[in-house]
Structures are given as C-alpha cells and as structure tokens.
C-alpha cells in the first residue's frame, strides 16, 4: 500500500467501514510511514471530537407547532376532498340522467338553455356568496399554515394582515394566532397577532388564553399591548392580577394599574 492509497482509506477507517484485511494493511503502512500515521492520528482526534459533539433538544414548542401544521394541512385536504367528492357525485348523476337519443339530447340542451336564462339572474348572488365563503375558509387555512411554517417574519406578518377580513374564525385559525402570540420569535409578529385576536376577544376562551400567555412574554412592549387589550375589552381580572404581580416589570405593573384606575 502506498501513501495515496492509505490516505484514501482513512475516512472509511474512521467510520469503521474497512474490511479487516484492508485495515491490517493500512495499519502496517502507518507503522512504516510517519506522515500517514500523523495524518491518521489528527483525523482520528478531529473525528472523535465531531462524533462526541452532543446533540441539543429542540424547544418544547416544536411538537405543538408540528401538530398545528399537520392539523391545518389535514383540514385543507379534507375540504378539498369534500369539494371533489361533491363534484364527482354531480358528474355521476348527470351521466345517469343524460338521454341516449340525439334528439332528446338536443331537446334537453335547449330546455337547459332557456331555464338557465330565466334562473341565471336570480341564482348569481347566492353562488357568489357560496364561492366567497369557500374562499374565506381557504384563506383561514392558508393564514394558519403560513403562521406555522413561514420562515420569514414578513411573510407571517403578511398572513396576519389577512385576518382582518375574517368574520367567523375557525378553531385552527384561533389556535395558530394564540401559538404565534406565545411562541413566535419576532416581537412584531406577536404584536400583530394581538391586533388580530383583538377582534375576537369577546370569546371567553380567547381572553383566558391571552391572560395565560401574558407571563411568558419576554417583551414589555407585548405585555403593554395585552394590557391595552384587556382594558379596551373591560376585563378587570387580568389587570388586577398584573398590577399586583411583584415579579413583573414595574413600568408594566404601573401601566396595568393606570388602566384599572381609568376603568373604575
């Protein structure tokens, strides 16, 4: 074995992938070649450092975030399947009703045309409403998914701006907004999620969740926005709790007390 051959085998030797005979030949070569022996020792040292480099645990938010993404994806897929299945059934029904004779086919087409002209004007509005509802549903799924998966905070902010068009939010959207408020690394996204949630704060479970997420907020800015929201919605209990919580930032506590005084 020469030096080039020996050096080509060093990584496989480190990974324990060499057959015994080849390993023995490499060992013999290194005994007689100090350069290759030295390179082997250096690489072995570096390899050990690399393989001993311990792994870290991901944050506890990783699993809920995955579950929210999976659930949003599943809902989107179910909705698409439902639409497809309705269209398939309609297709089968039409195929069943379609007459065999050309004369009847022509007659049916003419009748449908006349009926369409008569009813067309009346049904346009309800069709538009139905289409609009479907689009709003799809938009909610899209917003939830973007909040969970988009890497860029500007994409997540853009998704949040669409929430202003939602009148009746689905659970998946509310959950995504609450998760964004609790766990999003960007302060701007957390502030925007408060604005988005403010429109639905009359729902008791949302208010309780906002109250629960208050203490975990690292930014006084976000805490202040939450206090404003509690005050604006007339929720005294969270404000009383915050004002009396000694571990919180004194400025934040004073702001809560100020809002509380204004309410009384």
């Amino acid at each position: 074995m020469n030096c080039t051959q020996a050096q080509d085998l060093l990584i496989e030797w480190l990974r324990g992938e060499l057959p015994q005979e080849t390993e023995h030949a490499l060992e013999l070569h290194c005994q007689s070649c100090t350069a290759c022996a030295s390179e082997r020792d250096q690489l072995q040292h570096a390899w050990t450092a690399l393989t001993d480099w311990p792994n870290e645990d991901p944050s506890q938010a990783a699993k809920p975030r995955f579950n929210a993404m999976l659930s949003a994806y599943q809902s989107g897929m179910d909705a698409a399947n439902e639409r497809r299945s309705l269209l398939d059934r309609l297709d089968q029904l039409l195929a069943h009703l379609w007459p065999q004779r050309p004369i009847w086919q022509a007659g049916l087409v003419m009748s449908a045309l006349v009926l369409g002209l008569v009813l067309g004007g009346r049904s346009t509005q309800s069709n538009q409403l139905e289409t609009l509802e479907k689009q709003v549903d799809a938009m909610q799924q899209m917003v939830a998914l973007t909040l969970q998966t988009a890497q860029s905070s500007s994409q997540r902010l853009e998704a949040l701006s669409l929430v202003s068009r939602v009148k009746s939010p689905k659970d998946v959207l509310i959950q995504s907004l609450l998760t964004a408020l609790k766990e999003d690394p960007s302060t701007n996204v957390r502030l925007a999620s408060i604005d988005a949630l403010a429109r639905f704060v009359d729902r008791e479970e949302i208010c309780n969740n906002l109250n629960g997420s208050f203490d975990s907020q690292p930014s006084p800015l976000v805490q202040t926005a939450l206090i404003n929201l509690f005050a604006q919605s007339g929720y005294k209990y969270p404000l009383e709790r915050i004002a009396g919580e000694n571990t919180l930032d004194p400025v934040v506590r004073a702001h809560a007390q100020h809002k509380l005084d204004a309410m009384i």
Partner: protein
Amino acid sequence: MTDHQLMLLVRDGELQKLEPLFERHHHHLYNFFLKQTNNRTVSEDLTQDVFFRILKYRHTYRQDGQFITWMFSIGHRVKIDYYKKKSRKHDALEDPDLLAHPGPGPDDEMDIIDQRALIREAMQKLKPEQREILMLARYDEMKYEDIAKVLDIKVGTVKARVHRAMKAFSHQATQLTKGDPS
C-alpha cells in the same frame, strides 16, 4: 412499524402517520441544522419546513425508497433555500450563547465547554457544503451511497469531499487550539 412502512401510509393519505416519523427524527434533523447554522430558531423553522415538504411532496416517495435518505435530501434542499434567502437578507445571526466563550466554572466542566466551543468555531470556519457533508458523515445510519443520494453526487465525490472537509476541520481545530484564529 418501520419508517418506510409509515411513510408509505402517509403517501397513501394517512397523514397522521407522519407524527411517529416526526417523533423519531425531528431531534436528529434539528441538530443537523443547528450544527450548521448555530441558530436554534432557524433550525426549528428548517425542521418544520422539512416535515411540511414531506407532506407536500409525499406522492414522490417511492415504493423502494429509504425514508432517512429521502428526508435528508429534502433537508438538503431546505438548507440550500435557507442560504439563498440568508445571502439576500442577512437576517439570521447565530445564537450568541452557542458561540460565546464560557465563563468561570469547575475545571472539568470548563474543559468540556471549551472543547465544544472550539468544535463550533472550527465548524463555522468551514464552507457550508463542508459542514453539511460532515454532519451527514457523522450520522451513523448514513452510508456513503446514501450521502451520495442526498447530495445527488457520485459516491467517489462524497469520499473525496468528506476527506477534504475532515482535513479542513482538523486543521481549523488545531489552529484554534494553538490560539491562532486564522
């Protein structure tokens, strides 16, 4: 149930079967990204993105496929997209505590922390593609043939690149140990 069996079920529409695959592999995937980016938030985002793409492209999973190899090849593309975005925006910095030099502590503990800080620093001095190939090579279940599939290169090229990356890493670690920051 094996990874492959679970992934075939996901491919055929049982999306909930992705959950055990996430449980089994997200830890490895997260560390695969963390050791290259030194940023926990980015690494979690990239890990989530891989599982999202697994769902999105589940139809492309093949009957004779290997889940780990397929997952890491998606991870490879996710990482390429990340570096493209990063070069445009420069918005993802390393977590300071991952690169910081340790404070005072017991001697043994200091040695371990010093050693880890040195490995991270030596890794950061490598090219992104060198960091990636080393992370794949240190992963026990990855054979050279698998790494070749993940990176879409020949097995011979994998061997040569791992060797070069190891030499560069060893060189950087030695320089840092000697106190030369070059």
